[in-house]
């Protein structure tokens, strides 16, 4: 065979051409390349000019940050004072005022735990124990009743702790349940398969609100007299069951993307079903579906605000209660912008983390 001469001397090779354009060139080619685009560009500029300066004046220049409600009414700008003046009710709801340190510590614990768990190097069995211990302490902090802590009934819980609790538990419980449902739906055993399909289709066929109503109104009717299940737990269960059905369908999509060869290779090594799924199939399938899964988790987080219809005081409801107070009535834009920011920070953190996870798992 003839050896082909191979030229490794890069300097002799043709380089890709470097194209440099100036600012004017860039504007011309990106914003004004044609009559239609030029008109659109100009219209957008006018629109932004009309919107942004007044908003900046309202939100920052003319705004009041630490004043009374009466001072606000005299001014023209935004009344951000509504937030600091009512912050503790917005965050904690009806939780006893002098005990607010307890949910604060619980939330700080929860957030630190979440941050600690972000690092994949920390994912091992001891992390599981840390979580169990952490959740126990958080529960005790919220509920009290032992160690000299005053008992606080769960119908007094509210605000941000409630929102965080419903969503964090909702996600962490719904995810594994969803995976099991997805595996069940692909099972060869007809009974399991039918049950899973039935479950998924039934739950996906009704809105979350109706599930919450059922959990609040219908479910207690079926319980034996005298036995009651806490309203928060019932709402939590409804959120978990609802989210799991959606997760299941997304995970099923991931499972279908894994080629038959992967299953066969795992089987021919002698791995049993659980090992095959856990070590070979699920790691690949779950990675593929990270984007849609996080989409579901984000909407589940926002959907926790629907618990307001069964009279639970999540952070959106506490904010609305503040607006019901005559002295602060009418400052709803400020209050809602604040709550929206809290939701946004949480959701953005989630989607950011999912992108990082995807990058890290990219192999």
């Amino acid at each position: 065979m003839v050896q082909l001469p191979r030229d490794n001397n890069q300097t002799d090779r043709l380089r890709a051409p470097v194209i440099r354009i100036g600012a004017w060139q860039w504007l011309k080619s990106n914003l004004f390349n044609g009559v239609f685009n030029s008109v659109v560009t100009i219209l957008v500029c006018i629109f932004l000019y009309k919107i942004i300066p007044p908003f900046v004046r309202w939100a920052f220049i003319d705004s009041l940050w630490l004043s009374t409600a009466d001072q606000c009414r005299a001014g023209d700008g935004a009344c951000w004072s509504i937030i600091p003046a009512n912050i503790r009710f917005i965050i904690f709801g009806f939780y006893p005022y002098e005990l607010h340190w307890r949910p604060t510590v619980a939330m700080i614990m929860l957030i630190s735990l979440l941050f600690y768990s972000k690092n994949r190097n920390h994912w091992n069995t001891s992390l599981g124990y840390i979580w169990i211990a952490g959740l126990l302490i958080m529960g005790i902090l919220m509920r009290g009743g032992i160690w000299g802590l005053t008992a606080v009934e769960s119908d007094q819980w509210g605000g941000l702790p409630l929102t965080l609790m419903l969503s964090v538990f909702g996600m962490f419980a719904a995810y594994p349940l969803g995976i099991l449902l997805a595996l069940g739906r692909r099972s060869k055993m007809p009974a399991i398969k039918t049950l899973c399909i039935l479950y998924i289709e039934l739950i996906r066929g009704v809105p979350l609100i109706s599930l919450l109503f059922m959990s609040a109104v219908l479910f207690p009717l079926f319980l034996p007299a005298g036995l009651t299940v806490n309203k928060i737990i019932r709402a939590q269960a409804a959120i978990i069951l609802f989210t799991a059905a959606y997760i299941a369908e997304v995970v099923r999509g991931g499972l279908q993307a894994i080629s038959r060869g992967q299953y066969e290779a795992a089987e021919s090594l002698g791995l049993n079903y659980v090992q095959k799924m856990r070590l070979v199939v699920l790691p690949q399938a779950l990675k593929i579906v990270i984007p849609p899964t996080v989409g579901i988790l984000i909407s589940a987080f926002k959907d926790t605000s629907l618990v307001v219809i069964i009279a639970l005081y999540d952070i959106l409801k506490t904010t609305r209660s503040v607006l019901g107070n005559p002295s602060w009535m009418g400052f709803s834009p400020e209050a809602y912008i604040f709550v929206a920011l809290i939701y946004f920070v949480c959701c953005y953190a989630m989607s950011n983390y999912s992108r990082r996870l995807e990058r890290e798992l990219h192999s």
Partner: protein
Amino acid sequence: MSDETLKKGINRSDDNKMIEIIGMHKWFGDLHVLDDIHLTVYKGERIVICGPSGSGKSTLIRCINRLEELQKGKIIVDGTELTNNLKDVEKIREEVGMVFQHFNLFPHLTIIENLTLGPIWVRKAPKKEAEEMAMVYLKKVHIEDQAQKYPGQLSGGQQQRVAIARSLCMKPKIMLFDEPTSALDPEMVKEVLDVMINLAEEGMTMVVVSHEMGFAKSVAHRVMFMDFGRIVEENTPQEFFDHPQHERTKLFLSQILN
């Protein structure tokens, strides 16, 4: 090593049977893909199966470790009959290595993790021991320096050699090869065949579905030709290539050897 020493001494006594297939039938819907297959493979024996696509040769060897279910007949592997009993199936799969046309490495695991997965989880070997053994087999297939890479970073030939090493880590008694070189670029076929020849020299029992006739000539004890789900012809490589009996075999060989 000469061809003769490579092929000497197969003990064809009853207690030396590794695989015994008796009257096996299989249908895909109406299609009769395996039609009354009888085949006995003895310890240390190497069999090459060839035939046109759709002739059932892949299905045949996939039945041996129950990747496909047969509908009639019997397969006995190393004294254990393949039944619907999951325990039996898993036990046989531990003893039977399989190499696929498309390698089927686990893309989310490094090469060394691919190799140690079976030993650690199925054989319950300690991690360190499994890794040492994996390195031994990686050396054997000449890619010990790629141990920490992911399958996607390797060439097709390297991936197939990893796949062979992965099967060997389970210390199988039988190796099945399902067209191991047909998805490879021509320049990589030889490196994979060399590894297979080494394996043959060590006395591994092998059933190979392949159209690599050079490999069949130098390594196989028996060559079989399949068509329409039947074993049409079966002979020593010498006889098979020099004096094919059936018209169908002659035609196939003339096309493949041009």
